[in-house]
């Protein structure tokens, strides 16, 4: 009996060692299983939130698909008259294109046009956001001879028939007779201008 009683100190030590070992296992379990698992869970929850947000945006955008298509159609419709009115070069010459458009109108009023000359392009103020394709004002100087009435009729006719062509400058000088005056009329057209960003990386014109 006394031996058993004496042994109680040893069993306490064994119990303490056992408890210590088991606690060590628990610590190892926490450090190498629970903690990494928690970290992974946190990361994956974040990823899930991000994916859910992406999915919400995607669903919203897809829901807007028909509205976007309508907007695209509306913008293209509104843009079409401008596109049709753009001055484009004829055989590489802007003045030639202007001549092909203005000569019939000058002939209608009896104005004698003697020269068409290209003037430096004028940039238009940039809208926000800036589009890739910019547009500019392309002036063409028309030199003509005729009476004041013919010149005024010609300008009236151009402004009526070509609603996107604008008179930029005018200079009428009286010649020897009032029937024949020298007119320098600068008309400007909308035309394609520079590209705000190159079409291909490192390429395109500015």
């Amino acid at each position, binding site marked *: *009996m006394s031996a058993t*009683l004496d042994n*109680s100190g040893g069993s*306490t030590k064994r*119990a303490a060692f056992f*408890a210590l*070992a*088991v*606690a060590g*296992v*628990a610590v190892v*379990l*926490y450090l190498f*299983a*629970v903690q990494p*698992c928690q970290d*992974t*869970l946190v990361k*994956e929850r974040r*990823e*899930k939130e991000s*994916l859910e947000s992406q*999915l919400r945006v995607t*669903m919203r955008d*897809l829901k807007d698909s028909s509205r*976007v298509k309508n*907007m*695209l159609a509306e*913008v293209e419709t*509104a843009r079409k008259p*401008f596109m049709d009115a753009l001055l484009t070069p004829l055989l590489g010459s802007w003045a030639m294109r202007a001549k092909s458009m203005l000569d019939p109108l000058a002939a209608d009023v009896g104005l004698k046009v003697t020269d068409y000359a290209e003037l430096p392009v*004028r*940039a*238009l*103020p940039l809208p926000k956001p*800036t*589009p890739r*394709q*910019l*547009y500019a*004002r392309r002036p063409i100087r028309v030199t003509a001879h005729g009476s*004041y*009435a013919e010149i*005024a009729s010609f*300008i*009236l006719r*151009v*402004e009526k028939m070509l609603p*996107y062509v*604008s*008179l*930029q*400058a*005018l*200079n*009428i*000088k*009286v010649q020897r007779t009032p029937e024949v005056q020298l007119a320098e009329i600068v008309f400007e057209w*909308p035309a394609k201008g520079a590209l705000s960003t190159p079409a291909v990386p490192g390429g395109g014109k*500015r």
Partner: protein
Amino acid sequence: MNTSNLHLNLLREAEKMSSSPVRLRVMLPILALLLCVGCAIWWAVLFMQMLLLRGQLGTLRSDLDGKKSAHAAILAEMAKVRDLQAELDQLVAYHKGRHAYGPLLAQLAETMPTNVQLTAISIPEPPPQMLTNPKFPKLPPLLGPTNTTESVTFRLAGRTAKAAPVTAFMETLAGETFKDWLVIDKAAAGALQSPRIHSFRQEARAQEEGSRLLAFDVEYRCRERRFEK
């Protein structure tokens, strides 16, 4: 029968004073085991959550992958709408800055007094655009002007025998008929004054009758061109 009672005192001296009725050598292993089992259960719960989450992530990824091409197409359309709208804004701004001067010239012919002869009519060209910064000439030029307005002037030069018809003509130009084109601001100073009389003097060259003609040169400010949406 005389029996003696056997009292076993298994408690140690330290344990006698302890508030806990359960001994430490029993408690410690149990607590350690509980801790270990708790950790294992915790890990199992987390692991199950992780498995569940991975399943959900897989579903989400496959959902997104399935919609990827349709979404890319709609994003491209949205970008195209934005770009075309910006192009349209610039073209509309150009159109807003367009003024028709044909009717002005037609009205001018109708209101012209018979005893006034115009020798020159001009709408001068606007000054050249400054798209490069003179302080930093090496920088690439701007793609467009920062100013959205452009001033326009209308200059008339002519001759007359008397001053009165010219004054009457200028009064007509200041009237309702021309208000759509010409700005009348006599009080303004310098270049902003409209009409601005550059000269109104007798011509040096004498006419055949011996009388001298009056030459005038007047400049009007027109409504400025506003290239704004």
